[in-house]
């Protein structure tokens, strides 16, 4: 367990000192969202109707941006070989790196989302569903993305390839995340959507680190 804490602290410290990933992802999120009014027109009703979809799709794409860096730097400078040779289980290693990734990119996105929802005129009663949905959904994005990031290590055009592999797998999260916001906006209960997102998060927590660890080991072979 100490390996987990040490790796988490190391990754957080690296992210804080370099600082660029978090800022880039947030900037992308804001710019991508603010492009939509130019594309679909600035009528407040139109924007309110598609706000949930815009925010979720932008969050998905923003998560993709930073994921290909998840293991890349450690793979290139050889740290990954040492980490895999360490006594800590590789699944814990993946968990620590995924948690650090979520804390530095997913969580800021969740915190920023109400502000962007304001720009898109999302109905006020939908805010809890948006925030709760993103809070449950973004860790799944990171966990599934960790599998993809481990698979494309050493590939040509890894970043583009990663989006081809991972985006289709994100579709269920998008469906239930947007579904929760839309249900809340029309005054229906959104508990079911959140429960399903929670179930997917638990499933991803149980399976994804294991699969990503297998993928890492075969990448380091």
């Amino acid at each position, binding site marked *: 367990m100490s390996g987990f804490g040490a790796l988490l602290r190391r990754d957080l410290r690296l992210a804080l000192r370099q600082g660029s990933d978090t800022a880039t992802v947030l900037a992308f999120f804001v710019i991508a969202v603010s492009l939509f009014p130019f594309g679909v027109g600035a009528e407040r009703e139109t924007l309110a109707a598609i706000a949930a979809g815009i925010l979720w799709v932008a969050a998905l794409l923003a998560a993709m941006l930073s994921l290909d860096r998840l293991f890349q730097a450690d793979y290139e400078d050889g740290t990954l070989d040492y980490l895999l040779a360490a006594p800590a289980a590789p699944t814990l290693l993946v968990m620590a790196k995924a948690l650090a990734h979520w804390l530095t990119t997913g969580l800021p996105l969740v915190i920023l989302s109400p502000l962007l929802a304001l720009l898109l005129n999302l109905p006020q009663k939908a805010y809890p569903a948006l925030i709760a949905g993103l809070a449950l959904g973004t860790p799944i994005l990171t966990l599934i993305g960790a*599998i993809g990031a481990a*698979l*494309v290590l*050493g*590939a*040509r*055009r*890894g970043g583009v*390839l990663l989006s*081809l*592999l991972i*985006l*289709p*797998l994100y*579709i*269920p999260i998008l*469906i*239930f995340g947007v*579904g929760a916001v839309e249900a809340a906006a029309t005054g229906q209960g959104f508990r079911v959507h959140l429960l399903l997102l929670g179930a*997917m998060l638990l499933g991803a927590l149980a*399976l994804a680190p294991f*699969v990503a660890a*297998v*993928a890492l080991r*075969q*990448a380091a*072979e």
Partner: protein
Amino acid sequence: MSARLHALANPARFGRFARRALPWTAWLAALCIGAGLVWGVFIAPPGAPPPEGQGETVRIIYVHVPSAWMSLFVYACVAAASAGALIWRHPLGHIVARAASPVGACFALLTLATGSLWGAKMWGAWWVWDARLTSVLILFFLYLGHIALTHAFDDPARGARAAAILALVGVVNLPIIKFSVDWWNTLHQPASIIRRDGPAIDAQMLAPLFLMIFGFTFYFFTVLLLRARAELAALRTRALKLRMLAA
């Protein structure tokens, strides 16, 4: 069964097996598809005339349904071969997965194309975000990812291992995707587009349909054997070239 599978790990033995099996699968495929097409297009009755029924458009199912079945069947084959390669290190597993995946992608594309042709006639739109069409589209994306990952590495063995893991991840995710697309579809689409309690398929149509399904399956095995043989030959050429470079 497992002993026989292990015997095929020897490339020379697999080559002999392929040579013996190929004429059978090829002829069975040609016979079944030929008979199924003639029966389906010329002999089987058309549907009830529109607007109640589907008229002559119904004949698209003789290609559409077998393709849809094959797109799923081939993915199952890719996943089974990948599991065999990852768990038992069966050398043929990666080769079969690599050979089958593009064929499956073609079947998924054929399903989408025929479904869209049918939709243009029956729904008045080339594309409708119907649950089944959408699921096949996502399956097509999964195939594309698998093919791209297989070819993304300078070392083919590395690509094969990564693609095998991806195929298994896809198998776990497919039911979740299918379920969520169904859920999304019932929320967003008016249910009138597809009548769930449509008329049961006529026995006259069932026979050619099954002939086509068997034909498509035999066709897949024919192409799979050919492609796997070509992959093995390519591997041997690569090894020989490397040895020449080293010498």
